[in-house]
């Protein structure tokens, strides 16, 4: 290799790294700032210019031990888990049918995402009236129902690509081996797409976990979810910045962990069998 080529390569590589480093700092800075805010003593919370202080656990103790945040977190967890369970039970057979039988043609495959494209404001009025009639307002059921409107399509879309990759021969073999088509589906096909199911489930869970709009309007009272609770620190006495920061961090951690596990499958899932039309 001649020296000028090596120099040029070194330069392009290091400048690329520099750009990435800057981007990384920009992305991480808010988290860092929130972490600092959560550790500041009460008198310094409203002073973003102060960077050096002796950290205090006051906010953490307040939020985790003496507030309803843990309960709201459990609420969020419950809403997310039930939403994902229902979404997987309905979405997996739906995705299988799109993948194997091209149900409804290529158009149907894509139009399941239509619900995603609709602004939530369009759905919220009918959903609110429906839940009011059913006397389900301010219950987790209302939130779960609302979350299913966008989690089922996403989970279905997500899984199509995984089913597309399962060779047909696998279920045909099972059928020749003595199983019905449905048994072949759940004994052979489903276990084969287990990573996809996990990724779709986690992705759907994050969507549900992050939602504030539906949760606030349909169930903003006793049974609120964590995002609604976080907004609740914006009180008439001002924003309780320190406690809010703790709640935000508590809300972020599960999502971060989840994303870490599914990152490998995310791109594939989001492609959703788009290749095959």
């Amino acid at each position: 290799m001649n020296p000028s080529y090596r120099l040029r390569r070194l330069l392009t590589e290091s400048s690329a790294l520099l750009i990435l480093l800057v981007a990384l700092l920009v992305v991480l800075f808010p988290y860092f700032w929130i972490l600092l805010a959560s550790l500041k003593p009460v008198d310094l919370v409203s002073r973003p210019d102060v960077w050096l202080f002796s950290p205090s656990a006051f906010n953490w103790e307040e939020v985790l031990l003496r507030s309803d945040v843990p309960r709201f977190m459990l609420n969020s967890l419950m809403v997310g888990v039930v939403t994902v369970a229902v979404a997987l039970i309905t979405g997996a057979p739906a995705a299988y049918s799109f993948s194997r039988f091209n149900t409804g043609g290529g158009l149907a495959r894509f139009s399941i995402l239509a619900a995603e494209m609709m602004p939530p404001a369009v759905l919220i009025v009918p959903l609110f009236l429906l839940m009011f009639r059913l006397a389900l307002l301010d219950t987790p059921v209302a939130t779960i129902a609302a979350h299913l409107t966008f989690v089922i399509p996403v989970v279905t879309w997500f899984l199509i690509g995984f089913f597309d990759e399962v060779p047909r021969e696998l279920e045909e073999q099972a059928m020749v081996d003595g199983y019905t088509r449905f048994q072949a589906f759940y004994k052979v096909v489903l276990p084969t797409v287990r990573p996809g199911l996990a990724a779709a489930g986690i992705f759907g869970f994050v969507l549900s976990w992050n939602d504030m709009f539906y949760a606030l309007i349909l169930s903003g009272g006793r049974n609120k979810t964590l995002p609604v609770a976080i907004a609740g620190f914006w009180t008439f006495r001002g924003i309780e910045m320190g406690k809010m920061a703790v709640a935000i961090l508590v809300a972020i951690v599960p999502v971060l962990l989840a994303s870490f596990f599914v990152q490998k499958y995310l791109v594939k899932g989001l492609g959703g069998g788009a290749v095959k039309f």
Partner: protein
Amino acid sequence: MAEIRLEHVVKRFGDVEAVKDLSLTIADGSFTVLVGPSGCGKTTTLRLIAGLETITSGHIFIGDQDVTHLEPKDRNVAMVFQNYALYPHLTVWENIAFGLMARKVPKPEIEQRVQRAAAMLGIGNLLKRKPRQLSGGQQQRVAIGRAIVRNPNVFLFDEPLSNLDAKLRVEMRTELLKLHRELGSTAVYVTHDQEEAMTMGDVIVVMEGGVIQQKGTPREIYFHPRNRFVAGFIGSPAMNMLAGRLRQGEFVSDALRIPLEVAGPERDVILGIRPEDVQLPGVLPPERETPPVTATVEVIELLGARAIVTLLLNGQEIRAVIEERHLERLQEGEETQVVFDRERLHLFDAQSGERLE
């Protein structure tokens, strides 16, 4: 154990007729090979027997039972796919036992049968592995083990050896045949490889365009191809085809005149000669030689004991398989005399492609 009978079977995919009014009886205990180019309907026929495709019209019988509308699971057939279709989430043991579990065979018997099948195939030491930890040849054995453990009426093979390398493929052929002799079940084997068909089949069924072109023993198919398609498809290198006219019991084409023992009216014909029946003068017994013709040697490809020699005859390329010890008489680029084996000439009608006797 059972005979398979297909009666006027038709399979349509939309506008495409993949199998056209096919009637075929596959004898009990035979090893029948369906062979043909891709898209000839051989795989569809196999899948119809398995029940993996619904039949458009006609009937399929296995033994005395009409299975036309039975689910695959109720036909007691076993199938080996080209890509093996091993269940990736199960161990080898579970893969082999999977079909027995579906049939609620008692546990101790499953264990016994899996062990016996594994021993037959020499995979007893792999039972705890997952498919992805196996080589291609081992996966193939597991797929076969899964079929034989079920003790089915019929074995269906869909190009099971295509994904193996050449050496292993030849080994597995022999092994499959041995297994078949041991088990005695009816086997239907689909391949596009005419050599595989020749070496493995008791009976060969040559298909093209959804229609059976010829059914017969390997010898019948090779030495008495019923039409031009079968003649050209079976055999490697392919049969030489010379266009000409049949005139007063003679094949006539430009400078060629070859006397034949075929009567009949004058017409356009195709003369088929297998490469091994194109020889240098003096190699064949004299009474079997046709009058010598002059050809130019284009290329000599030595295979070892024999060579494929490409000759230019009357402006048409033909191939000859010549034994190595005769090669000294040939030189690339130079002319030579060749003769054909009179007893092994095939004559086909140019229009219909049918064989003329």
